């Protein structure tokens, strides 16, 4: 067959034609994501209808919302029969929702300042790659500053507490050469001795730089949730690590102490532990000691969350290949060194999502203290606000506000943890 006999032979490439309109841009996206099959179309229409109903129901409630009114009846009068939210309860009770109803109003700046400083203190830990390490010094000082700001009292209390910690750290580093375990115990004992002594030492300084003291029972609102959350999570991390190491330990007695503790705490609901803090713990303390309720609650919640964190970290430890342990041994590192340098950095990295889950769960669980008649944000809403004659009957606005506060905090934390996981990713994928 010669070339001439063929009817047509293309001698050059055609330019690319644009794809059909149904296969590009928004239409393609719609076809693929919303209307790919009859069942999908139905699902799309149903969900669009649901969204439409919700938006149409909620929109007037938000748009007609009243932000300024002294009481629910006044608010209903302004609305005059229209659908609308009485957000005035939030503006009117703003301070109660955040600080509780007994915290002295002229001192609101102190917890607010402590809250702002919290971000300054936490930032170097959260963004350790991007901020200078020297800022960590402030993180170390923050607990003492925050204590002084929130509880007030003479500055000598937090200063001597800080000095005790410094003494402990000093002793720890002096003895580190001998043995890490001995150093930890000795450092702890030294700090304890110093704190006991400082009870006598600090008396002369009691008038110095003293701020007005606020009793724990005067605190309330979202402040309590934040305080409990931050304090208990930061305390339970080191305890959780120790418990996890103890549970993995080859020493049977230590292992069993840890196992019993962890399984017991994980087996009971937090609310029973709060009952313990509320009514039982007093029986186990020396007669006459009057332990602060917040402190008792902090102890119980810390025990609770450290057991959960211990299990998460144990998972991380177990996930490490045996070779890592053997490699650390073959380098001649002792137990403390191998844990500190080889095992824990990797195990903690694996456990980040779990730890964050525990932290978020714990923060949500701080609302349970309202059951033992502490006035955290839920306690404030159920007690002083909904029971007051002005605002009896306004539910959605206050509960919605609490939801928003918790959602922002918890969602923020989990987003951060996902970001951190990506940052710490060392495998190349």
């Amino acid at each position: 067959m010669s070339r001439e006999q063929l009817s047509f032979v293309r001698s050059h490439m055609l330019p690319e034609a644009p794809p059909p309109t149904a296969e590009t841009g928004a239409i393609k996206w719609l076809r693929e994501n919303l209307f790919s099959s009859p069942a999908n179309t139905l699902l799309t229409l149903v969900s669009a209808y649901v969204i439409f109903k919700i938006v149409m129901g909620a929109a007037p409630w938000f748009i007609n919302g009243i932000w300024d009114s002294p009481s629910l009846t006044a608010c209903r009068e302004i609305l005059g029969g229209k659908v609308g939210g009485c957000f005035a309860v939030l503006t009117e009770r703003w301070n109660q929702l955040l600080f509780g109803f007994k915290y002295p109003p002229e001192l609101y700046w102190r917890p607010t300042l402590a809250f702002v400083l919290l971000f300054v203190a936490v930032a170097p830990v959260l963004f350790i790659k991007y901020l200078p390490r020297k800022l960590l010094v402030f993180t170390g000082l923050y607990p003492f500053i925050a204590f002084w700001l929130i509880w007030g009292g003479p500055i000598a209390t937090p200063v001597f507490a800080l000095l005790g910690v410094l003494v402990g750290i000093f002793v720890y580093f002096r003895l580190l050469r001998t043995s890490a375990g001995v150093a930890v115990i000795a450092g702890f004992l030294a700090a304890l001795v110093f704190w006991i002594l400082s009870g006598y030492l600090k008396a002369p300084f009691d008038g110095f730089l003293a701020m007005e003291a606020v009793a724990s029972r005067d605190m309330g609102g979202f402040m309590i949730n934040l305080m409990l959350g931050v304090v208990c999570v930061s305390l339970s991390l080191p305890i959780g690590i120790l418990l996890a190491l103890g549970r993995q330990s080859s020493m049977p007695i230590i292992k069993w102490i840890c196992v019993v503790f962890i399984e017991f705490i994980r087996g009971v609901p937090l609310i029973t532990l709060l009952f313990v803090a509320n009514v039982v713990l007093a029986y186990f303390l020396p007669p006459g000691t009057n332990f602060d309720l917040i402190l008792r609650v902090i102890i119980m919640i810390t025990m609770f969350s450290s057991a959960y964190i211990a299990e998460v970290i144990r998972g991380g430890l177990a996930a490490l290949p045996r070779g890592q342990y053997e490699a650390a041994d073959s380098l001649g590192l002792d137990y403390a060194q191998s844990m500190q340098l080889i095992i824990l950095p990797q195990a903690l990295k694996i456990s980040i999502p779990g730890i964050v889950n525990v932290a978020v769960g714990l923060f949500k669980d701080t609302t349970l203290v309202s059951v033992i008649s502490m006035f955290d944000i839920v306690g404030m809403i159920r007690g002083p606000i909904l029971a007051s004659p002005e605002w009896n009957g306004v539910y959605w606005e206050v509960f919605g506000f609490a939801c928003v506060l918790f959602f922002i905090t918890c969602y923020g934390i989990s987003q951060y943890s996902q970001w951190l996981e990506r940052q710490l990713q060392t495998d190349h994928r």
Partner: protein
Amino acid sequence: MTTMTDPPRASFQLSSLIYDTRYRSYTFQFIALVLLMLLIGYLGMNLIQNLASQGQDISYRFLGEPSNYDINQRPIEYDSRSTHLRASIVGVLNTLIVAFLGCITATLFGVTAGILRLSPNWLVRKLMAIYVEAFRNVPVLIWILIIFTIMTAVMPAPNQFRGEDASASMLFDSFAFTNRGVYTPAPIWGPGSLVVVLVFLASIFGVFYYRHYATKLLYDTGRLLPMGWPSLVILFVPTILIYFIMGRPISLDYPELRGFNFGGGLHIRGSLIALWFALAIYTGAFIAENVRAGIQAVSRGQTEAAASLGLRPRRIMNLVILPQALRVIIPPLISQYLNLTKNSSLAIAVGYMDVTGTLGGITLNQTGRAIESVLLLMLFYLTISLSISAVMNVYNNSIKLKER
């Protein structure tokens, strides 16, 4: 070069308790044990002193005394003259009821939401993501209170169902949603209903037997029996037949307005519904994440391999994907059930009389027996948790991948 393999067998010195790794662990354990003993002794001494100073003792005799309080939801016979022990048992049963209902509903919500989160439909995917994030990030106590508020403050009062121009009406004339709870039809078990129930139970076994037989036949001979419609036939046809043969022994008792309230039917209280649904929706959000993670954990290659073997999509799902996904899903699912059971102790916030409300609430306050009550309460939850963990361990071992 074998000189350094054995350390010299030095004689035991006091310093080797700290420096010699062979003895050091004994030192630490000894110290830990002594500290533990000291702590327990210290706490015990304080307890004895405190009890002595208040003239109290530890005794469980209060369990045998009359409780003098009423419980509004009684699965077993109980009145205010019954003992505290019986009140606690009622509480335990109420806890188990709400936990059981909650677990089933949470699984339904969770599995649905988890599968829909992987749907090809963008809108559905986003809606489910909103559901999961909204419920995971807000405390369950707030959800319980919100649903309780809906049940008590938004639902119409029973008298609104009255009259010609009633502002509220019953759903299908059989369900009444009121601010005192939900009234639903209740079954009346007439004579002969036992037979119907037994036949129904037997048909459930029949279905399992049929499926077992069909699988065995498939593996032995390669013959494939239909699974779907025969199961349904076995499940329902004998029961319905016997129901009519016995002369319809089971009938429904419909709730109706009597006086100021509804009478008849089954009364489900608002507190139970609030607790049940809040726990179910909240836990469902967590289960949804587990389900999604489980399905995503099965690599795409498995689907493709199954397809290249010539399996059809439904069989791929049933025979290849699900068995592998379930291995990932079930352990966290069980621990979510456990969490739900423990969270059901929040019943105390809405006045549902579970074991925390009876034993840890009213009994504790009436008798002042704090230590005993809280201890019993903890033991109850501990028993449930530990037995479920034991079952879990057995299950985990049975599905463990047999490697090497």
